[in-house]
C-alpha cells in the first residue's frame, strides 16, 4: 500500500462517471498528480475543486503506478480565487495552465511549487496592487524556465564577463549582455528589464510587459506536444491574461 500526504494546488477537475471526479494537483513532493476522488461531484467537494484552490491531499494506491485515490480537504485561511476580479482570475489561469503544459507528471519541483504557492497567495490577496503581483508572476515565469532547464543566464555579461548593468538577453542563447557591450546589437537583442533581476517594482507598465515578452519568447521555444502529437502553442490563458493586464494598466 502506497500512502502519501501532501499539500497541493488544484489544476484541473473533470467528472468521472456519475459521482466521482478525476483531479490533477500540483503537489510539493510529487509534482503533478492525477487521482480519483470518490464523490468528487458532490456539493460538498465540487465547491472547492476549482482551479487554484489549495488543498491537503492524501493519496493512496495498492499498486505502484496506478492512478490511486485522493482524499482532499481545502486548506483553511487561504483566499479562494477572486472570481470577480478579471485580471487576477486571468493571472491565476495563466500560471496554472503553464504549470500543466510544461511540467511532466510525477516529477517533483518543490522549489517551483513553493514559488507558485507564494505567488498565488500574493495574487489572491485583494489588497496587493496589480504592479506588485504581476511583477511576481513575471519573475515566476523566469523561474519556471529555470526549473525546466531553459533558464536565462543573468549572472554575468556573455561578452565582457561584468556583473554590472545587465540590460540585454540574447534571443538565441538566453545569456545576458551589459548595456554598453550589447548596444551595437540592440536591434537583435531582447531588453532585460531590471525588475527581473531583483525584488524591486517595475518602473512602468511598459517595463512590466517587457518582462512578460522576454519570458514568453523563451517559453514559446520549449517544445511541448498535445496528445495527438501536434506542437502546443503557449496557453491561450496567458494571452488573455496579458491582454487584461495591458488594459488594466493602460498600456495599450
Amino acid at each position: 500500500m502506497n500512502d502519501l500526504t501532501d499539500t497541493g494546488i488544484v489544476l484541473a477537475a473533470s467528472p468521472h462517471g456519475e459521482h466521482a471526479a478525476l483531479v490533477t494537483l500540483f503537489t510539493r513532493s510529487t509534482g503533478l498528480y492525477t487521482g480519483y476522488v470518490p464523490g468528487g461531484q458532490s456539493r460538498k467537494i465540487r465547491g472547492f475543486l476549482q482551479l487554484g484552490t489549495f488543498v491537503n491531499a492524501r493519496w493512496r494506491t495498492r499498486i505502484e503506478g496506478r492512478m490511486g485515490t485522493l482524499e482532499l480537504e481545502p486548506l483553511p485561511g487561504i483566499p479562494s480565487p477572486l472570481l470577480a476580479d478579471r485580471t487576477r482570475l486571468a493571472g491565476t489561469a495563466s500560471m496554472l495552465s503553464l504549470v500543466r503544459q510544461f511540467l511532466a507528471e510525477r516529477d517533483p519541483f518543490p522549489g517551483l511549487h513553493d514559488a507558485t504557492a507564494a505567488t498565488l497567495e500574493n495574487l489572491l490577496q485583494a489588497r496587493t496592487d496589480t504592479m506588485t503581483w504581476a511583477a511576481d508572476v513575471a519573475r515566476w515565469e523566469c523561474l519556471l524556465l529555470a526549473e525546466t532547464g531553459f533558464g536565462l543566464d543573468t549572472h554575468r555579461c556573455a561578452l565582457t564577463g561584468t556583473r554590472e548593468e545587465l540590460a540585454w538577453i540574447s534571443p538565441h542563447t538566453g545569456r545576458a549582455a551589459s548595456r554598453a557591450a550589447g548596444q551595437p546589437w540592440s536591434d537583435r537583442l531582447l531588453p532585460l528589464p531590471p525588475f527581473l533581476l531583483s525584488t524591486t517594482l517595475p518602473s512602468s507598465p511598459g517595463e512590466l510587459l517587457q518582462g512578460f515578452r522576454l519570458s514568453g519568447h523563451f517559453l514559446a521555444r520549449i517544445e511541448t506536444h498535445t496528445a495527438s502529437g501536434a506542437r502546443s502553442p503557449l496557453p491561450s490563458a496567458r494571452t488573455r491574461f496579458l491582454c487584461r493586464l495591458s488594459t488594466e494598466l493602460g498600456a495599450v
Partner: protein
Amino acid sequence: MSTNEIEHLITVLGRLPGLGPRSGRRIALALLRRRTTLLDPLRDALTAVSERVVECPLCGNLDTCTPCRLCTDERRDAGLLCVVRDVADLWALERGGEFRGRYFVLGGLLSALDGVRPEDLGFERLYARAAEETVREVILALPATVEGQTTAHVIADHLEALGRPVTSLAQGVPVGGELDYLDDGTLSAALRARRPV
C-alpha cells in the same frame, strides 16, 4: 439467458446518467413486464422526441418548433438576453419563473486547461445577437466557478466594447442559508456584495 435484443436494451439503458448495468436490468424487466402501460408509451415518446425535437437556431434551446417557443413568445421581453451554459441551466431559470426575457445557450465554458476556446463555443453568434437593436441588457447567468467566471469576463470585455450593459447574477447567502454552514468563498463574496437594508 437473455436474448441479444434484451442484452442490447440493458446495455443502452445502463449508459443513461445515474444508471448502470444493474439498474439497466431492472428497468428492462419492468418495461417488458408492463408492455402496454410502460414500454409502448416510452417507445412512442422516444420516437416523437427523436423525430421532432430540434435545437433552436436563435438561442440553442431544445423544442419541437423552430425558432423555439421562448424566442417567439411576444409576451417575453426581447430587451433582456440571458446567457446560460447549457439547456439544463435554461430549464432551471424557467422553473423559477422570475425571468421573462430571452435566452442564449453557450453550450459550454471556456477552459484554459482543456483547450476550449471562444471559437469553439460560438461566441460570434452571441455577439451578433447581443448587437441587435432590441437588446438593452445582457445577463450572464454562468456558474460561479473559475471557468464560469472566466467565460463571463471574456464575454463582458467584448460586449462592453460594443456599449452593451452587461450584468451577472449575484453571489452570496442563499435563501434559507445559515452563515455557519457557508464556505469561506461564498461568505467573502456575500460580504463584498453587501447592500443597505
